[in-house]
């Protein structure tokens, strides 16, 4: 083992009910290095971090810090062992002041009492040093998310850690703030800290990191030095080659959009304050339209505004040529929409209800309270979709929570197919599910389009979208910035549009 190694994780495995989140993963971090942890959604990055910081227990494996084996049972343990973390969601207390958030748990004291003066002064110093423009006595909830993120980093930095974990800290920062963060990271690096940097942004990885570890589907793909792994290779490692045999599933399908009738959905200037700027969107029967953009670019928010999950506050919406006003999801369902939400656990499944009830719930809601479906109808519907989508479940009365992620997702798709929608919105339907099911879902999407349905497909995996979509809408920073179709529909073009005009200015 190298004398520079500060952290090693060996053979780490972790399963959640129904999901193998990590399988025999190794990870090594050296002193004075910025180490990127890369992988698509569901690759196991967050789980690995949480295992390391004691949020999750792990089933097998070993963690060593500076050669000493440790088991972190809680974030507190991890902190005591020199591991500080800044999470993707800001984990600070909004009701406390900036200074308190920096110092809580280790406040400077005078005669046993918290010395607010010293604490505020030290905080001001720390903030100034890190170039964060905020007053120490301000309450945290009055700060912007970006500032909150910087404060979280400042807190971690000030803890004198050996290992600093930054779990997607940049998703809410603008360029200037990212620059500041990088300066800070480089300074810490020079002071000997090992930094684990988790991010979606390739640019940032190549700008600041020394080494990359790639995970895919809970397994280790490999560890690479940054100079030896060109961008394209990295993407290939992250996406995997598993899909190659399916690269052209599109070819079997005609992808004919139906120009004879009015578009199924025709939105003009639709928007929702604070989440998505006014946008135009249209889709015809037989089309699969993709929405792409980075996490937080507004791709989910766009479809939520159409579906009425977040009621649109501007613009007009025509469904099959008829102008409609959608105030609630139910109204959207009644004009033929269906929406599979991004967060399966929080917004999709109704955990304790059976597979049958989860399948019929949308249909039942559409019918109204007083027209209860008969038991026979329910069972027939459930059986039909369990068979059609090949849902692996003990019985139709099994609670959905005991199914695996992929099968849960199929049940939710079944739920919406039962309502026989014209327009189906699938927001990350393949996230966190096994590859076999992924391809099944992709094929299903194309089949549905063949049947004359309009499908909107959102995925973090660009390749997956290229295989299924005939047209792509690109979003950036809460606004639609482009539309690509036909010959132009290539990964390169999409990436360019996502990246935006900055490169042109330079």
């Amino acid at each position, binding site marked *: 083992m190298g004398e520079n190694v500060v952290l090693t994780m060996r053979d780490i495995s972790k399963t959640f009910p129904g999901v193998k989140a990590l399988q025999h993963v190794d990870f090594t971090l050296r002193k004075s290095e910025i180490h990127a942890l890369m992988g698509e959604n569901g690759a196991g990055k967050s789980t690995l971090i949480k295992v390391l910081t004691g949020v999750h227990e792990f089933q097998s494996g070993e963690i060593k810090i500076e050669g000493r084996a440790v088991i972190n049972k809680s974030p507190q343990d991890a902190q005591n062992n020199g591991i500080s973390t800044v999470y993707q969601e800001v984990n600070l207390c909004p009701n406390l002041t900036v200074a308190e958030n920096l110092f809580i748990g280790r406040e400077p004291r005078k005669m046993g009492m918290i010395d607010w003066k010293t604490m505020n002064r030290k905080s001001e110093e720390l903030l100034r040093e890190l170039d964060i423009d905020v007053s120490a006595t301000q309450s945290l909830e009055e700060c912007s998310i970006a500032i909150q993120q910087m404060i979280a980093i400042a807190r971690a930095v000030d803890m004198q850690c050996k290992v600093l974990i930054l779990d997607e800290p940049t998703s809410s920062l603008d360029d200037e703030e990212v620059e500041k963060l990088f300066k800070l990271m480089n300074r810490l690096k020079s002071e000997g800290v090992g930094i684990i940097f988790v991010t979606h942004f390739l640019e940032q990885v190549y700008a600041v990191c020394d080494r990359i570890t790639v995970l895919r589907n809970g397994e280790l793909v490999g560890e690479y030095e940054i100079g030896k792994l060109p961008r394209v290779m990295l993407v290939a490692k992250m996406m995997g080659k598993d899909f190659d045999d399916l690269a052209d599933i599109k070819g079997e399908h005609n992808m004919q959009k139906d120009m004879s009738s009015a578009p199924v959905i025709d939105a003009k200037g639709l928007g929702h304050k604070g989440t998505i700027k006014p946008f135009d969107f249209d889709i015809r029967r037989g089309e699969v339209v993709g929405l792409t953009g980075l996490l937080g670019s507004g791709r989910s928010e766009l479809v939520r505004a159409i579906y009425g999950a977040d009621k649109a506050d501007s613009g007009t919406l025509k469904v099959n040529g008829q102008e409609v006003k959608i105030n609630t999801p139910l109204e959207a369902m009644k004009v033929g929409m269906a*929406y599979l*939400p991004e967060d399966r656990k929080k*917004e999709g499944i*109704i955990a*304790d209800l059976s597979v049958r*009830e989860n399948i019929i719930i*949308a249909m039942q*809601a559409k019918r109204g*309270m007083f027209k209860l479906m008969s038991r026979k109808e329910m069972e027939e519907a459930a059986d039909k979709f369990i068979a059609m989508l090949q849902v692996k479940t003990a019985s139709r009365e099994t609670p959905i929570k005991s199914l695996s992620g992929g099968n849960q997702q199929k049940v939710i798709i079944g739920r919406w197919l039962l309502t026989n929608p014209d327009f189906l919105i699938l927001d990350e339907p393949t996230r966190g599910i096994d590859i076999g099911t992924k391809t099944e879902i992709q094929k299903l999407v194309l089949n549905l389009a063949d049947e004359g349905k309009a499908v909107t497909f959102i995925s973090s995996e660009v390749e997956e979208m290229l295989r299924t979509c005939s047209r792509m809408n690109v979003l950036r920073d809460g606004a639609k910035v482009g539309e690509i179709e036909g010959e132009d529909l290539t990964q390169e073009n999409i990436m360019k549009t996502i990246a935006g005009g900055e490169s042109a200015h330079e």
Partner: protein
Amino acid sequence: MSKEKGFNWKQITSHHLFMPVVCLIVVCLANVIKSPDFFKISISDNGVLYGSVIDIINRASELVILAIGMTLVTAASGGQDISVGAIMAVAAAVCCQILSGGAASTSEFQNPFILAALAGLAAAMLCGLFNGFLVAKLNIQPMVATLILYTAGRGIAQLVTQGQITYIRVDSYKVLGGYIGKCPIPTPIFAAIISVVVAYLVLNKTALGLYIESVGINGEASRLVGLNSTRIKWMAYVICGFLAGFAGLVNSSRIYSADANNIGLNLEMDAILAVALGGNLLSGGKFSLAGSIIGAFTIQALTTTLLSMNVSADQVPVYKAIVVVVIVVLQSPVFKKQMAVWKARKSSNSTEGGRA
């Protein structure tokens, strides 16, 4: 053969009504041991059924009615309505005050009974509407929201009766809490049966039951499949208020008066207990009406038993509080997890021991 038998046994023990029924049987057994003629039912001189069991079933009526409402509220909002006892008092006060025309005591109806009863029920529903507004619309924790009426309710009831106990000394008023003509079965039992049947029909012939469970388990997912979570929660509170009002009328008829301080006293605790004893999670979600009803009878049997053992009515809550704590501890995920860990350790120890 024996294998098959074992399988059936497992099926029975894992049924959601298994524990509630066992609790009820345990309480009954304790009674039988204490007084062997516990189950004896005889006909008294004035032609009505008489016996401990009849007494328990009769007295459990209000609790059964309350437990229905409490079950729905718990399932939909993951919290309990602790104002039901006070709402009973409000309904009784409104009803009696209208019947007596404002006097402290009356020997004939000053206003039609139907009008008074409807007014009482309407007042109770209004209370439910208020609770529902706070919980469903303003997202206030159910128990904090209902705490307001829990304390103010009895004050309001006293305000209605102007601080007195209003007596309705009319025979027809006593029917609801007594007997219908020559029928040997006490009327409250019919009231409870009707409430249960109506609730069963509403929950199983409309989608309300499914909606309530769905909203209680995952409000956001329910909203996205087109359910109006706010309205459904709100509805549960209005139904709960209505049922509390009905229970209040039955109780008021028993004592042919409106006693703002004592009608429904401590019944909120019993109702919560009934729900918990029925195997329902107090954190909401899936519910079993049958379980809650069995729970209600168990609680009443427990109360009657304790009272017959010379425990004073004021002291009974001690035992109920202990039962509540035991149930919620057994239900708590943390405890279950620890038990699972402990069991796993024990079994691994025993297998290792077996090898050695």
